[in-house]
């Protein structure tokens, strides 16, 4: 019985695979082309303007903010996130599909200052270890009307949705290039988006209700993904389909 199945397979395997291979090459070419002609730099520029703009009741800019490497040190700071901060000042709401915020532009500028720096998120603090552990559980937890977990789509190598290849996000090889290229210009809606937004969009596609921005849940998932994929040099902000 097994052998019959295997024979049938061999007979059917010819032409469609060749077609799929061509399509794959063409799609890679398309992805290269959109990266080459991406307006992503504009968002870095807008973020840079915001970073140095004096505003608010204190007429202050963000230029002396401490992102973990000391006041005003931006170079390489993004590559060391997520990490545990004692204050809660970072719990700000990001934009969404209908209402983009300035936070995305800031993230573009800040992330760009880590180009070339290896991704090295925090792992030493107990809160960081706990966030990783929670993120790992959330990744594999099946729920919702379609019984999906993150691993339903991102759990096995060589799979795709439509023509979109699916990285195995529980592996170093799968998560590395992903965490090293967000935030990114997203071609489908022509907006600049954070990885947090992307994680939320997976919840939408899993038919679940919406994770709250900057909640422990989204931070835990981002921590799990970034720690899993750590080590790749940061090469964003990227351009994504």
């Amino acid at each position, binding site marked *: 019985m097994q052998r019959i199945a295997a024979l049938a397979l061999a007979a059917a395997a010819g032409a469609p695979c060749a077609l799929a291979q061509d*399509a794959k090459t*063409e*799609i890679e*070419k*398309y*992805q290269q*082309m*959109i990266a*080459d*002609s991406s307006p992503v*730099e504009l968002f870095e*520029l807008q973020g840079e303007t915001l970073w140095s703009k004096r505003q608010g009741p204190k007429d202050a800019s963000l230029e002396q903010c401490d992102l973990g490497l000391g006041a005003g040190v931006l170079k390489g700071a993004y590559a060391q996130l997520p990490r545990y901060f004692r204050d809660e000042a970072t719990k700000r709401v990001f934009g969404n599909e209908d209402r983009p915020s300035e936070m995305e532009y800031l993230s573009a500028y800040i992330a760009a200052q880590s*180009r*070339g720096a290896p991704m090295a998120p925090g792992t030493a603090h107990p809160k960081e270890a706990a966030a990783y552990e929670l993120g790992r559980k959330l990744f594999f937890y099946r729920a919702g009307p379609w019984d999906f977990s993150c691993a339903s789509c991102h759990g096995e190598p060589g799979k795709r*949705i*439509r*023509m*979109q290849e699916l990285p195995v996000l529980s592996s170093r090889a799968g998560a590395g290039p992903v965490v090293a290229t967000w935030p990114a210009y997203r*071609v*489908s*809606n*022509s907006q600049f988006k954070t990885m947090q937004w992307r994680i939320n969009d997976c919840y939408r*596609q899993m038919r679940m209700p919406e994770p709250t921005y900057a909640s422990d849940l989204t931070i835990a998932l981002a921590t799990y993904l970034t720690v899993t994929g750590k080590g790749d040099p940061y090469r964003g902000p990227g351009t994504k*389909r």
Partner: protein
Amino acid sequence: MNPARRIALKIAAVLAAGLAAPLSALAAWNKEAFQSKTAANALKELGVAASTESKDILIEAPQIAENGAVVPIEVTSNLPGTRSIALVIDKNPFPLTARFEFSESAVPYVKVNVKLGESSFVRAVAEAGGRHYSAAREVKVTIGGCGG
């Protein structure tokens, strides 16, 4: 992007607000051509009665686009004396997408990101020496991601 290149090429961006308008003499937008619903009508409105297929017009475009919202198209005309290039997307609701006029030091070349509502032929029509020449390429738009 290459950081070294970025630094070397870093150029001040100037904001629009409050500037004098030395470039106010922009040409009038060809409403009739741009609002034509077929490629043939749009070209007629541009004064293109007929065009000859030419291998001297090169169109660089993806064969398969994962997303119709951004499809990079690059057109080069190697025809001597090329004055203009028009870009037409047959299946779009308004097929005429762009028309560029080149003079003096501008090389008859342009690259632009366009939207494709569905799979379509993308056509470039160049004007050189008072005649029109054209080339076309097909771009297939697939449904990417979760398709919803």
